[in-house]
């Protein structure tokens, strides 16, 4: 997988032209039906060294996806010729290309649906452009270096999980977890900085027959927080995404 070359060191005197001459940046597909939003994103992302394709309809988005095989898709859910969910579904049938969903505020159900269909992250409109760039980098890094069980040890700040020995330590202190708590934590740490919906977590930990039993999940997340967070009221690792699910915030990124 092509590695994104998005970084120009903050404050470093790197000429923008140097980046533009280097077409090796990750290929992004931006899908939004608002022309001014598309223009702004295209200019900005190109300025940050990405190659940018754009589409204003679901049909164009799928066609462009087929033609250019982008490394990441930024997708507005509200499209004129069919919903963005269909785009997510069709792309997920073919590949795991990261998808960051854009949606208007208040559309929690939309976000959850899109994430359940396989979208990787979401942003609520209006959003800060820096936040979008950060999310794009996280998603690309995650694809570039997937951590799914490949590494025996996962470290994030004071938290260390040894996947081979099923051992968890916080600041060197061993933590005892029940099998379910351990399975849940494992799903979190192998998907760092990614939004996981209640349904996804339930199905991965409890099994495919689960999905609506969010209360189980809330109980186990609360237990995990008491065991691994220094302040369970203000969690550093297991962050709630209101109305959507949870995100494991890894300090690594």
């Amino acid at each position, binding site marked *: 997988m092509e590695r994104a070359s998005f970084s120009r060191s903050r404050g470093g005197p790197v000429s*923008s032209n140097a980046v533009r001459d280097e077409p090796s940046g990750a290929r992004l597909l931006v899908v939004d039906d*608002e022309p001014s939003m598309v223009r702004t994103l295209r200019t900005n992302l190109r300025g*940050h060294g990405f190659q940018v394709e754009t589409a204003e309809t679901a049909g164009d988005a799928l066609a462009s996806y087929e033609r250019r095989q982008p490394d990441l898709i930024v997708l507005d859910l509200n499209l004129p010729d069919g919903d963005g969910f269909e785009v997510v579904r069709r792309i997920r049938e073919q590949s795991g290309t990261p998808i960051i969903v854009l949606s208007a505020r208040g559309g929690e159900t939309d976000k959850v649906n899109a994430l359940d269909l396989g979208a990787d992250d979401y942003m609520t409109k*209006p959003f800060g*452009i*820096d936040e979008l760039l950060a999310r794009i980098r996280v998603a690309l890094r995650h694809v570039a270096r997937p951590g799914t069980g490949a590494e025996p040890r996962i470290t994030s700040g004071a938290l260390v999980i040894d996947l081979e020995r099923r051992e968890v330590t916080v600041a060197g202190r061993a933590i005892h977890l029940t099998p379910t708590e351990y399975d849940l934590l494992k799903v979190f740490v192998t998907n760092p900085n990614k939004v996981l919906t209640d349904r996804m977590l339930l199905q991965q930990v409890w099994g495919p027959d689960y999905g609506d039993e969010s209360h189980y999940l809330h109980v186990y997340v609360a237990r995990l927080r008491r065991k691994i967070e220094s302040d369970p009221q203000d969690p550093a690792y297991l962050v709630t995404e209101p109305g959507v699910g949870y995100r494991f915030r890894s300090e690594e990124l």
Partner: protein
Amino acid sequence: MDNRVMRRLIPFVAAAAAVAITTAFIDLIVGRAQIANISMLYLVAVLIVAVAFGRVAAIVASILAFVTFDWFFVPPTHQLVVADAEELFSLALFLITAVVTGTLAARERARAQEAEHREHDAKVLYEAAFLMAEPNLERALVAVAEHFRAALDLDAVSIEANADILPHPAIAARDDAARADLRATGSELRLMDPAGPSRTIRLVGPTTARAGRRARLVPIVAAGVRVGRLTVLPQAGAPEFGPAEERVFAIAAAQLGLTIERARFRQDATESEVLRRSDDLKTELLHAVSHELRTPLASILASAGSLRQRDVDWTERERDEFATAIQDEAVRLDRLVGSLLDLSRIENGTLVPHKAWHDVGALVEDVAGRMRPVTAGHPVRLDVPEDLPPIELDYVEIQQVLSNLVENAAKFSPAGSEIGISVGRDDSNVRFAVRDHGPGISPGDSERVFEPFVRLARAGQGPRGVGLGLAIAKRLVEAHAGTIWVDRGVSDGTRIVFTLPGRAGVV
């Protein structure tokens, strides 16, 4: 003679007549031999009188029979003296038997009569309950009043309730005189103590016929609060209401109380339903508006954020692009806020057209010119005859109507498809039409599209726009005494037509 005196005398007359007939019968047919049987015959007479005329008649008949028996048949006859002690004993026995059996028979009769009355009353009240089920309170109460008046043989009945629920009292009257007499009872609900009992008033009036008439006022109470009054005007000269009638009125008043209470609940429910709907509409408006405001805001924030980024040296062209996006979207926000203000002004009725005579052709060409940035990508065909008369209109407002229609046409039809703007005469009116070749509006939606914030899901296309364009257009056209509608006679796309009244005789 007075009716009431007559009625009082009936038992006595009946008793005397019964005893006389029995005596004659015995004298003529039975003979004097069997004294024991004679007493039995008198007993039969007493029982018949008791059953037919009640207790008083029974006792009177018993005493009369006793005396007659003694006088005519007990030796020595034709005097009240009784010679034989045994005869005296059987005579006394007869009197006691007659009084006791007569009273018992009369009581049975009274019970039967009461049962009959109660059945009648229950039927009257039951039928009234049926009538009260009518959802329209005024109609229900008029029917109930007439029902009581007819069933209880009254001169007039009126049912009043507080004016907020029943503006006019429900009145049933035998004739105009009765109606006038009823009116003389006054309609001051205040006169009645809310928790007080019903009472009788005597009418005073200019005519002797009215003076001295009585009317019964029964309070209608629901949940401890007086909600109305039942007024009953009996026939002139009818006896005073007895406890049975009072009971009927009390039950009727209780039923009416429930009916009025139910009507009030229904009224409250309707009001709260209206409030809820308008609340829903406002919530919908807020959702739509907040979504519409956020879309340009998202572009503005993204562009402004881009300009502030220090990790990229933006070229002059790129900076210009961000600035243009900010400006465009700010203009769009301004337009949206303006539309919302327009709509609220129109809804409040504070927007008054400033009419002047204008050339319609020039107006249409002006709009087509101004809308060129919006219609770019669509060929626009103008159909404006030369001989159109001038029309009195508010230029800015009608320009806005046409612009909204043209903007919709451009927005909802595929690029490259033609947009037609035409004007023509229609009797004394001038008719404007904007035509596109988009997906069209289904017949079921052709009214709804003019409501604010109604956005149609068009063939898999998400809702777009704030949904105010047609709502504003409709209100502006109507402020010009014109009409606007969706023309269903087109084979494809949408044709929206509006007419404005021309000057009669000139056009």
